[in-house]
């Protein structure tokens, strides 16, 4: 052991980024290890999206609505990822015995959460792209070639806010313990409904749409639809610039929220001894 060179250990910002990439790694690599997942993660959800497409066809909806469903269906990948692989993850890590090792290590917990997010984003991104591409090809969705830069901006801001929310939820769900599983279930279909995954959120009425806007995908999806489908500009809930502004506020809110929740949780956990207890 003495033959090894003396160790240099990174601190501060460098340690933060090292931790981020180290935690993202298992997510990105893990998804390539079980190829069968890809089938369940892409083909079967695509069939689900197709179901909604045919409902619109059955009631003779305008063609853009089929595009709405395909885009919304693709975005479910990110929502499911945030619910099941972000929000509930710390709880599962606790169950597996990883959480205590994360806490004992000098790598900051915020970096670990960010690493989880980046890894999850890549994984869910693959699923979303497959649904989007195959769905568009199968159902002949026509996109407008408007502002690509704006579209990328909306997507980026939405993802930052969404995964910031996931990071915050991770602490909240950890505090909720076993109930986390039920919370994830609760936030599935009801959020698909409130956030307008399969129809323009404006249809939910002003107040529901406003309240649902706390979920970053609500406004993100609405803005993306406005940019991708220009046949009927009145379908948007708010104008794109306003939606981007609100999403930026959500980014700041969720990321700061995640930081404070995490510290609070660690403090309570250390005081009450709940960071490491396992219950079945």
């Amino acid at each position, binding site marked *: *052991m003495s033959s090894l060179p003396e160790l240099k*250990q990174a601190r501060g910002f460098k340690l933060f980024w090292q931790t981020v990439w180290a935690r993202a*790694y298992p997510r990105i*690599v*893990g998804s390539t290890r079980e190829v069968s997942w890809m089938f369940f993660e892409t083909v079967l959800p695509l069939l689900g999206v197709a179901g909604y497409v045919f409902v619109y066809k059955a009631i003779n909806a305008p063609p853009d609505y089929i595009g709405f469903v395909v885009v919304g269906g693709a975005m479910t990948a990110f929502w499911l990822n945030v619910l099941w692989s972000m929000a509930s993850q710390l709880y599962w890590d606790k169950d597996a015995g990883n959480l*205590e090792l*994360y806490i004992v*290590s000098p790598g900051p917990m915020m970096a670990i959460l960010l690493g989880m997010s980046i890894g999850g984003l890549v994984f869910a991104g693959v699923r979303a792209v497959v649904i989007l591409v195959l769905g568009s090809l199968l159902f002949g969705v026509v996109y407008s070639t408007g502002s690509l830069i704006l579209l990328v901006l909306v997507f980026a801001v939405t993802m930052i806010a969404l995964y910031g929310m996931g990071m915050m939820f991770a602490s909240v769900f950890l505090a909720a313990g076993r109930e986390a599983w039920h919370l994830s279930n609760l936030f599935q279909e009801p959020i698909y409904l409130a956030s307008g995954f399969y129809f323009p959120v404006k249809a939910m009425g002003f107040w529901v749409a406003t309240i649902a806007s706390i979920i970053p995908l609500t406004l993100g999806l609405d803005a993306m639809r406005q940019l991708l489908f220009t046949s009927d500009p009145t379908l948007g809930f708010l104008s794109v610039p306003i939606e981007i502004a609100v999403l930026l506020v959500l980014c700041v809110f969720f990321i700061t929220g995640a930081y404070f929740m995490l510290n609070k949780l660690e403090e309570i956990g250390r005081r009450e001894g709940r*960071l*490491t207890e396992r219950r079945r």
Partner: protein
Amino acid sequence: MVENNLAVHTEDVMRIYKLRGPKRKEDPREIIALDEVSLDIRRGELFGLLGPNGAGKTTLIKILATLLLPTSGTAYVNGKNVATEMREIRHEISMVSGGETSGYGLLTVEENLWMFARFYGLESKAARLRIDHLLEVVGIADRKRTKISDLSTGLRQKMNFVRGFISDPKIVFLDEPTLGLDVSAAREVRAFIMNWMGDHPESTILLTTHYMAEADELCDRLAIIDKGKLLAVDSPRNLKHRLNQDVVFQLTVEPLGPRPSREEMIESIPGVRQVTVTEVAEGTVLQLILQADEILSDVLAHLTRRGSSLIALEKREATLEDVFIDLVGRGLDVDTSHTAEDRDE
């Protein structure tokens, strides 16, 4: 002010767990896991905490590893307060527990170790060098590319060891490190600990165990803990020396018969300090700590009166188990987590 040469220093550390959802009024509401524990561990020591399940060993480790706050009292690791300076402490410690299932099953041994090494700020290349080296030392270099879900318990624990030592920590907390391992794997793990201490004379290991032989073999000093209280702190040799004036006999008898009244019990014979009784296939084994050799004849006469015949008799050196029995009046294989009500009795 904490002395410079102390790796661990605790003052009157108490830890009380509130129990959730007691059903009836008489059900206990809290458990005292640590009861005014004051302890000093010097740098470079391999220090053992010896006690039965539920004695408070893991709780103390959790407090020192910054996972848990003491209910009252203070604890310092390398001179830093666990309650307020946990971020600094985390750069200097690591922890390995027996029966750990940490890591991600889909990743290989190397990938899991690399991930944790990065959490400790190691450069990628340095991490890989260290992983190769340590896997070689623990004898699982050929499993480097095996997914950890495919490892046996013993191999997984060796991997956990590599994880715990990869960052050259100043203080390592080993919580029952050989739990669930077979004899040869446990021996290899103990050899690894000894070698590592030899190579890192400035580092400190705090090890908890309920295996007497392990504590005896490994530790420079050890503390005997029961029901959250420290009962004795000394080197294994000195602890055993306490019983040097006494003699230890092991008797196998048949039959011992039903439990007699208090005044007819062996303990009532003058000069008998402790008795433990274990049933085995051949009969009943009695471990006796006596103040002098002569008292044995009184014990044998007592047994004859009770109709027991002697099958075997052995006089032996005192062990840590005897020390434990002498201190607490029973063996180590009993769960002793206790409640506030017990304490009040």
